[in-house]
């Protein structure tokens, strides 16, 4: 077993946690403390940046550097933190409203640039802190305070946005699966570049049970699949179901039925540069195909912060100046004696 330099307690602040009893955020916070301890970056080298919303209260519960900022802007602020001090490990915490509605622009552009931050999106398909309005991830027809007759618009699927923005890391977990959450958070922290982790989170007050058709104990094993790099894509209570190729698509089969054997089952390769298969895996919704949790895509590529500092170094190596005056004097000047 790895020896931990830090324990989860090192990352807990002295503030009392003020989320509702039963809120999924408690479990996620717990997993985050554990993940940070496992990653082993010191609390003073860690910054947690959030926007606005229930999930965005999280930095107050961390004994790290932290900013609880303004609605939707966490990704842009985290980008500035990381550029100014690339030594820091920077985490961003947002909800589906904060990250994908008001903050949607910053979300896609942070991913496009590949700034090395770890983005946690707590997806409960509702605005909780403003007391129950539909969000950009609410299913069509969702009845909420701002949609009393049901919504008449389709939701974003966060993963699809991540791939559309050319994301190189996407993982998913469920609030109640503490171990999976910890596992994907550690992978996100170790990935260089923008890591997006979607955590299906239950709001006990305004969207209680919104994920239950997938996450309920009785159905979860058959409606979700835990993907692990290098392992067969197997799932089900008895691990007797698997994913196989079906032309351009994927289909779910039962081993031993219709002539399918373990050899037909796909092996998960999170490191594939092409995102074609990753996208299909991430879009599985728990209906005909199981919803994927775990690390779906984890591909290395140069980070924005590295590219920014490398370019500065290159320019300075070629024609750097030691002072403003030196730079100006190298240009067009004249002397008055």
């Amino acid at each position: 077993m790895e020896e931990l330099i830090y324990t989860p307690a090192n990352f807990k602040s002295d503030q009392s946690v003020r989320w509702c009893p039963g809120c999924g955020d408690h479990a996620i916070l717990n997993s985050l403390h554990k993940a940070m301890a496992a990653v082993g970056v010191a609390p003073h080298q860690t910054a947690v940046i959030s926007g606005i919303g229930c999930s965005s209260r999280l930095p107050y519960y961390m004994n790290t550097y932290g900013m609880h900022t303004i609605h939707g802007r966490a990704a842009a602020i985290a980008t500035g933190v990381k550029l100014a001090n690339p030594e820091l490990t920077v985490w961003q915490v947002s909800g589906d409203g904060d990250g994908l509605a008001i903050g949607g622009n910053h979300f896609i552009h942070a991913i496009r640039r590949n700034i090395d931050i770890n983005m946690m999106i707590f997806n409960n398909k509702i605005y909780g802190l403003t007391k129950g309005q539909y969000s950009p991830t609410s299913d069509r027809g969702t009845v909420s305070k701002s949609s009393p007759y049901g919504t008449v618009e389709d939701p974003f699927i966060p993963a699809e946005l991540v791939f559309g923005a050319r994301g190189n890391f996407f993982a998913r977990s469920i609030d109640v699966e503490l171990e999976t959450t910890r596992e994907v958070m550690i992978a996100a922290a170790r990935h260089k570049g923008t890591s997006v982790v979607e955590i299906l989170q239950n709001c006990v007050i305004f969207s209680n049970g919104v994920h239950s058709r997938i996450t309920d104990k009785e159905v979860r094993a058959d409606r979700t699949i835990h993907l692990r790099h290098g392992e067969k894509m197997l799932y089900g209570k008895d691990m007797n179901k698997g994913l196989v190729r079906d032309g351009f698509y994927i289909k779910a089969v039962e081993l031993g039925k219709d002539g399918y054997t373990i050899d037909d089952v796909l092996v998960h390769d999170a490191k594939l540069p092409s995102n074609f298969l990753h996208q299909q895996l991430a879009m599985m919704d728990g209906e005909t195909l199981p919803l994927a949790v775990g690390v779906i895509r984890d591909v290395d590529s140069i980070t924005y912060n590295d590219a920014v500092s490398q370019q500065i170094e290159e320019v300075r190596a070629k024609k750097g100046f030691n002072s403003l005056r030196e730079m100006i004097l190298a240009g067009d000047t004249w002397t008055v004696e």
Partner: protein
Amino acid sequence: METTDIKVLDKVVVRFSGDSGDGMQLAGNIFTNVSAGVGNQVSTFPDYPAEIRAPQGSLSGVSGFQVSVGMNVHTPGDKCDVLIAMNPAALKQNVKFLKPGGVIIVDIDSFKEADLKKALFETNEPFKELGINAQVVEVPVTSMTKAALADKGLDNKSVLKCRNIFALGLVCWLFDRPLEAAIRHLQSKFAKKPAIFEANREVLQAGYNYGHNIHASVSTYRIETENPQKGVYTDINGNTATAWGLIMASERSGRPLFLGSYPITPATDILHELAKRKDLGVTAVQMEDEIAGVCSAIGASFAGDLAVTSTSGPGLALKGEGIGLAVIAELPLVVIDVMRGGPSTGMPTKTEQTDLMQALYGRNGESPLCVLAATTPTNCFDMAFEAARIAIEHMTPVILLTDAFIGNGSSAWRVPEASEYPEIHPRFVPESLREGWKPYKRDEKSLARYWALPGTEGLMHRVGGLEKDSDTGAISTDPVNHEKMVALRREKVARIADNIPLQEVLGDENADTLLLGWGGTYGHLRTAANELNAAGIPMAFTQLAYINPLPRNMAEIMSRYKRVIVAELNTGMCADYLQAQFPTTHIDRINKVQGQPFQVSEVVEKVREILGK
């Protein structure tokens, strides 16, 4: 042979005008640099359309560049002594800027019937139609340019692109400017295109020779110079000066410079310049929008950089919420607003002073911050430095207002030594306070909180947009605490007054009347005050650069004069701001909102009207 009539002047104003694709800005810039190089003071005013390439020859596509060179130059001049018009549209749009007795130089090759039609002339006699009775020098610029380049093997388009330099050559002859200096500028401009450089050099000489050969028909000028302070000089526009002032502040504070920005006219040149300054280690990033510009800067500030965002009025509106975060989180942040005509998209390339109220009050809640305004192109350097110094030493956002006029205008500037600027002292957590330190503990004198940089052991803390307990720094909704924090933030900004210079009064200090302006109108108002004093109307003059807080002696100044005339390029924002603070002062107003700077003559006239003199 007749001798050329030589006029000796202490300053002249030249206006280059043509199609926006004619290279008038380049010709004007080279003339400016050459003049500054021979020791003239210079002040420029590029007046260009928002359209990058409006239809050729049309009235909307006219681009102008006015420059004043000589002694006691504080403005680009109300009107010009010499107008260069490369086509009928340029003539039509610019003849109003010509002084009585001025000279017009036109490219007569571009005054064909079709050209006149494009400029909506109704007759074939443009000069008569415009009622021009000035001296018009008709120069075949196009055909002379073609002739000069006949054997160069250039295509027609490249040949025509050299017309501006023919005009420049002619103007250089007219004002006795050394061609070698102009050639040096062409060489650096076309360093990567030797054939184009050669062509332009040829044409420059041809223009100069043409002037020499027709010299009997027009007078030439000798412009007086004064002896400026010894040192190395360069020509600098306000936006570049702003960028360089920030770099100086980075050198004097030891904090790396970070710019998070988004393209917007007329502020983008600040982003351009700082993006180039990777050679000095500057991090300048173009973000996805204005909000991300300010937010990335706030993140960089939290992490310990000298953090800046640059924009114009519409962008400042978008940044408002972010700036409010910097107010409550008490982080150093410099926001540059290069003001332009508004509201909304307004007149993006034109100048105005209409963002003062937005800068002072354009945020939700009680969110005071420091507001500064630069007065001249070169003063942008000093005020950008000041904005950074105040932000860092007082842990507050600072908005620096410049404008399109001084941002694009340029002057000769003596390159300073770093030691001419004070050291800036970041307010890191002192060793003595580290035990039991809390994020909202303050320095008693300035009331600034301390800057605890991420990465430092033992100082982990959280800041954010929610109100905090004044003692513990934890979230607080306690009513009394909130009122205390509101008062603390206000008083912190007020105490910046202890760390800025006193307001200076120029002109006739003992006059009954004070002419007061702020920001980029300095040159025009100062010249107007000088003219009034010269005309026997005693006038004191002062120009505000520190607007919030005001300098400590402002109350005394405002009570000293019988009347204060506040002149500004809006409908009275600074006058209202001052009247609210000094209710017993009699304030008169001079306002202009045309997207154009003041003219000295109109200020003089309006002051006379107000005084009945």
